């Protein structure tokens, strides 16, 4: 764990307590069974605690605590698989903070900070993230194109859309249709067909605005994945300490001890990479590279830990009654989001010009 300031420690402790007491994995189970995208009351409580405004400037109703602070909260939520539009909304807000006009900031950021408005990124157009390419086009302020697998889509009021010539804001309404895509993680995904939807460009972000948004998406997603790594690791370790076979607790077997030592090593290295990514955004130095490292490291760690988590739980790990399977299913969705490890390795080599 990075060395935190007092403010950050308080924030993390608050998120940890709330998640543990008010929103454990059981809460997500209820949301899933009810067929809801997320628990609206829980989202209200998160906004009440100020989490929706952590990276929004104070002048626009946020607290401007920074990305490491937001990452701490997101990690805690990842531990309990709390379904919420926090990440998607924060990314949409950051797009406006980075590239919006003063008018756009004034119009949208306070509503994001209060949690009243939910936003999301609509960048990818194919089932695999392939970088910042888009065929979506805009003519006379009307945007047309199809966006695949948009996160938290059904309740979003504002879409941040990647088009051929830049990044646009599209409000929910005319000229678009949503088709739900039910995936293994049972979360809120949709394909969106834009057909002449009114769009406004984020014109002030410079030519690398889309890259900056993508970097933030990678790091924040990696923070959720880090929380998931930690949760699966912790429950698996607990299980090994309780389960008795051959008159011994499983944790006394060296074959399992060494596997857990390997997972612990991966988990801690992933923690360093994710915190490094968050700190890079806060400092503004080497962000794109740090973001690729953070996401790839989290991808690989969560992939391995979620597989081993199921294996080491044995048969009960395969049951819907146990939580560990939820993590496995959410893990693969997030691994695919904003760049698989193979995509990120290619992107990294390109950054270094080889």
């Amino acid at each position, binding site marked *: 764990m990075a060395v935190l300031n007092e403010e950050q420690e308080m924030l993390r402790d608050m998120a940890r307590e709330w998640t543990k007491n008010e929103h454990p994995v059981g809460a997500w189970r209820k949301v899933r069974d009810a067929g809801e995208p997320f628990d609206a009351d829980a989202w209200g409580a998160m906004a009440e605690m100020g989490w929706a405004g952590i990276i929004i400037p104070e002048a626009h109703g946020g607290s401007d605590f920074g990305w490491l602070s937001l990452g701490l909260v997101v990690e805690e939520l990842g531990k309990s698989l709390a379904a919420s539009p926090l990440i998607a909304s924060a990314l949409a807000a950051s797009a406006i903070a980075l590239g919006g006009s003063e008018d756009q900031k004034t119009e949208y950021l306070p509503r994001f900070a209060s949690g009243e408005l939910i936003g999301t990124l609509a960048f990818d157009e194919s089932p695999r993230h392939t970088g910042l390419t888009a065929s979506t086009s805009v003519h006379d302020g009307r945007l047309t194109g199809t966006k695949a697998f948009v996160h938290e889509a059904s309740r979003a009021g504002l879409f941040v859309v990647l088009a051929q010539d830049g990044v646009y804001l599209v409000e929910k309404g005319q000229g678009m249709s949503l088709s739900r895509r039910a995936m293994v993680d049972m979360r809120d995904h949709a394909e969106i067909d834009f057909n002449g939807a009114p769009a406004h460009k984020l014109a002030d972000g410079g030519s690398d605005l889309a890259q900056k948004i993508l970097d933030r998406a990678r790091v924040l997603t990696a923070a959720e994945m880090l929380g998931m790594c930690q949760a699966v690791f912790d429950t698996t370790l607990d299980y090994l*300490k309780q389960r008795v076979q051959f008159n011994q607790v499983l944790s006394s077997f060296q074959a399992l001890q060494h596997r857990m*030592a390997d997972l612990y090593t991966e988990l801690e*290295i992933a923690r360093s*990479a994710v915190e490094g990514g968050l700190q890079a955004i806060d400092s503004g130095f080497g962000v794109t590279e740090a973001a*690729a*490292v953070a996401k790839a490291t989290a991808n690989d760690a969560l992939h391995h830990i979620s597989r081993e988590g199921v294996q080491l739980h044995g048969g009960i790990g395969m049951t819907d009654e146990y939580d560990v399977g939820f993590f496995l299913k959410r893990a693969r969705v997030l691994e695919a989001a904003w760049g698989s490890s193979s995509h*990120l390795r290619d992107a990294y080599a390109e950054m270094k010009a*080889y």
Partner: protein
Amino acid sequence: MASTAEPEAKTDLDAFREEARAFLAENFPPELRGKGNLLSSVEEASEESPAEKAWRVAMGERGWGTPTWPKEYGGGGLTRQQARALEQEMAKVGAWNPIGGMGVMMLGPTLLEFASEEQKHEHIPPICKGEIRWCQGYSEPNAGSDLANLQTMAEDKGDHYLVNGQKTWTSGGQWADKCFCLVRTSRADKHKGISFLLIDMHAPGVEVKPIKMISGMSPFCETFFTDVAVPKENLVGEEGQGWTIGKRLLQHERTNLSGGGALASLNAQPLHKVAERYIGLGEDGKLADAELRVKIADFEMRWSAFLLTARRAMEESKAQGGVSDISSILKKAGTRLGQERAELMIEIMGYRGLGWEGEGFEEKELSGTRAWLFGKATTIYGGSTEIQNNIIAKRILGMLDHQ
């Protein structure tokens, strides 16, 4: 979160920086710029040049080779901030720390914690000045991973111990002046029968035989003790406390082994630069070997995550005022990555990465071969990777042994 004390602290630090700059301008011989410290325990002792000696003496006098150690024992007495500033100022002019070796990495911190006042005053100043080379007498032919099985006996003869036995894998034993040794003072208890003893390598009855390794180098030795008389004042701590002291020393060793590996590679060229030279870029601007390109990117990304981990371990340890839990993964992860890097270097260079000696190879290529082979030792010595896994499982994760 700027504290009000900060501006003043900054002024003090600025003043120190000036002092450091002046010292470096006066004492660091420019011809040594970027040459690095060759006084490593695993390489052969090369003859010290007059400039190197002058630089070592200057740093030693000031205690700045061991910047945060107490002044009264010859250290620099600097705060961590000052030590960091000194490091930065040294890096700016290409200066390096000429004071190193096992005395600095392992024994010094251990003596500071466990030794008597007399012992500290006798043994620490020569370490700070780089005058004495220490070696480590831990492993024995039948005590490797099971270190506590060691059999070298130290028999109580009143005013001295009479030491008999054999140590092995003594790094730099053939060049060492003294040895910090784990010996058995009692056969009654495996762990509580062990004591920590300082032995003069030039004393009668000490014999050293270098071991030739697969790399062709002989960085390790067998050390034989036959009726070696060691004064009682060379016992550190109490009789029977050797296992506790010895284990603490190993923590310093682990931290340094992984850190050392990291530092060594920091100065090295990035792998993709080497690959550009040996493999070349295709028309698309990508390395011509697509699979190797991915492997290199994978390595470099994991390496960068490892460096972040090493930094985090340091920051956490400072903030907590003790060794942080994740220090336990550094040796295992760092040595593994070091080996992967060496294997990739060979893959990149092809036959030229496998030269043994003579014509047709560059100096760098030849030393790469030796480094690749020597590097196989890193996951074995200093507590093998398997032992590190045991430590992580038991100490950090609380997984207990079979009952």
